[in-house]
């Protein structure tokens, strides 16, 4: 072992045997390439799970709203904050003839703003911030309208720790009069995640957002970032161009922490130590060396070296008590990872399936607003490093997806440090199976 590996090793042994229900056998990825599974997964998972669609900072004042076009035509939503600070979500569809009510210039593009009411661009029907109709033009020309029941169709919406979640359950069955009420958001999140509320997300308003389409199933993308086996190979050039050296620079397998609390999960990741403080003007002579760039700007992939003060950190962080803690990555079922970094910023990864073969991948980074230029520049280094690494991950997903689709090989193997992949696919498949058996009963 190298000195880095000796310093971080715990001798803990394997994690997977702690979860005997998952087994240790080979797996297959039919769930990531089968069109039939994709259709079932959409109904069982995405049309009835709590889904995070943005932060409260997008609703900065009374009357603020934004729209979301959830990929794969999952839903077209309006999210609002009314004059009493209630947050609502509803489908962006007019009760008159089905026009999209809230949009600007291009109907397919998302929009945002502040208003007191929404006016349909087609015939002028108006809706309040709660989505209920409050004015019908030429109302007397209609027949037997019950205005109290006319509205843009509501969507379950709850806010937790400043994250806005929606749940699409119930919408489709309204025609039959059956309503499907999801478990409350807090119950769904459970003890494994609720402690995150103590984290000062509200201090981190400096936001960078990225989005890309990936030609691969969304679950394969999740798989690619919840194990720590790939870095010396996918990201080797950042660590050491010589792979045999890069392998010795990464933390040992037992220095990470894994915690599964169905349906959610956590991995804690060690990170490099902070660079020592230095006086201005001591970065040394310019070199074509990325370590010099990190030293100059005092930042790297694991964050800035001058860490902003955000008060005492909540005790639920680094619950596995790993050495040289770098971040906690909380996987909130089904499609978002909330990563709290030791250097006081956070990142979310969100995955939105479009088809069995494609998805939209969103990366959002949030920092404490910089107090000066060097803090701002350090954040730029963190953002750019994160995206350079992410772009390396992306193409691997496309390569995996295209190879799996050949079905030339259908049995695959997961090592101990790929425990989260084993869990994630199991939970998705179990959720789909439970939904399908419920459908057969009814």
């Amino acid at each position, binding site marked *: 072992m190298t000195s880095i590996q000796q310093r971080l090793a715990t001798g803990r042994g394997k994690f997977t045997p702690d979860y005997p229900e998952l087994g240790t056998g080979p797996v297959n990825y039919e769930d990531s390439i089968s069109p039939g599974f994709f259709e079932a997964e959409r109904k069982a998972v995405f049309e009835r799970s709590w889904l995070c669609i943005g932060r409260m900072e997008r609703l900065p004042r009374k009357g603020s709203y934004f729209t979301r076009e959830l990929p794969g035509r999952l839903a077209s939503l309006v999210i609002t904050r009314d004059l009493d600070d209630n947050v609502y979500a509803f489908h962006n569809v007019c009760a008159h003839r089905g026009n999209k009510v809230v949009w600007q210039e291009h109907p397919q593009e998302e929009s945002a703003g502040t208003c007191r009411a929404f006016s349909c661009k087609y015939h002028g029907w108006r809706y309040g911030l709660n989505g209920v109709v409050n004015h019908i033009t030429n109302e007397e020309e209609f027949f037997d309208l019950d205005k109290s029941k006319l509205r843009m169709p509501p969507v379950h919406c709850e806010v937790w720790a400043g994250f806005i979640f929606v749940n699409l359950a119930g919408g489709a069955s309204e025609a039959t009069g059956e309503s499907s009420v999801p478990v409350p958001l807090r119950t769904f999140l459970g003890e494994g995640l609720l402690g995150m509320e103590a984290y000062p997300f509200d201090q981190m308003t400096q936001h960078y957002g990225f989005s890309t389409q990936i030609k691969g199933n969304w679950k394969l993308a999740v798989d690619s970032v919840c194990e720590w086996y790939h870095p010396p190979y996918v990201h080797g050039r*950042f660590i050491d161009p010589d792979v045999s050296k890069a392998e010795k620079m990464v933390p040992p397998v037992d220095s990470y922490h894994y915690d599964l609390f169905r349906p959610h999960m956590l991995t804690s990741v060690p990170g490099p130590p902070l660079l020592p403080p230095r006086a201005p003007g001591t970065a040394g002579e310019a070199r074509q060396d990325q370590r010099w760039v990190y030293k100059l700007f005092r930042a790297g992939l694991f964050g800035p070296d001058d860490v902003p003060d955000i008060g005492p950190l909540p005790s639920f962080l680094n619950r596995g008590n790993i050495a040289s803690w770098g971040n906690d990555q909380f996987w909130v079922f089904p499609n978002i990872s909330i990563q709290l970094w030791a250097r006081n910023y956070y990142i979310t990864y969100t995955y939105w399936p479009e088809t069995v073969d494609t998805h939209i991948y*969103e990366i959002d980074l949030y920092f404490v607003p910089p107090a000066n230029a060097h803090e701002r520049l350090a954040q730029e280094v963190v953002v750019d490093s994160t995206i350079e690494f992410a772009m390396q991950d992306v193409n691997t997903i496309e390569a995996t997806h295209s190879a799996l689709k050949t079905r030339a090989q259908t049995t695959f193997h997961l090592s101990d440090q790929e425990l989260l992949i084993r869990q994630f696919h199991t939970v998705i498949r179990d959720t789909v199976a439970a939904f399908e058996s419920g459908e057969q009963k009814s």
Partner: protein
Amino acid sequence: MTEHQLPEGFCELEPLVDDWALATRAERYAARLDRPFDDLVEFYDTIAPHAERAIAYLDGLDVDDLPPEALRLMHLLYSMILVSYAVNVFKQNRIPDAGAAFFEMVAEPAV
């Protein structure tokens, strides 16, 4: 004599302004991908020896209210960061094996 586009004391960097003092990350990334690799190396080698002095200069100003000349200097440093991965890590404009992968920027700070 043309008017200075950068703060006093940074005249060595004036020739970089037109190509690299770009206001959005999308423009900066496009410049990294579109310009010959030798241009990236030349840009990096020109700005890197002045970067620490530029940071110290900018730290003397209100980062939320930078005058236009200082803002251009800031944008040059953002470009230096984005180009540094190409010059120092990949030795080419694109990330190797990244194919057509590209992230659209959907939200970024005003400055």
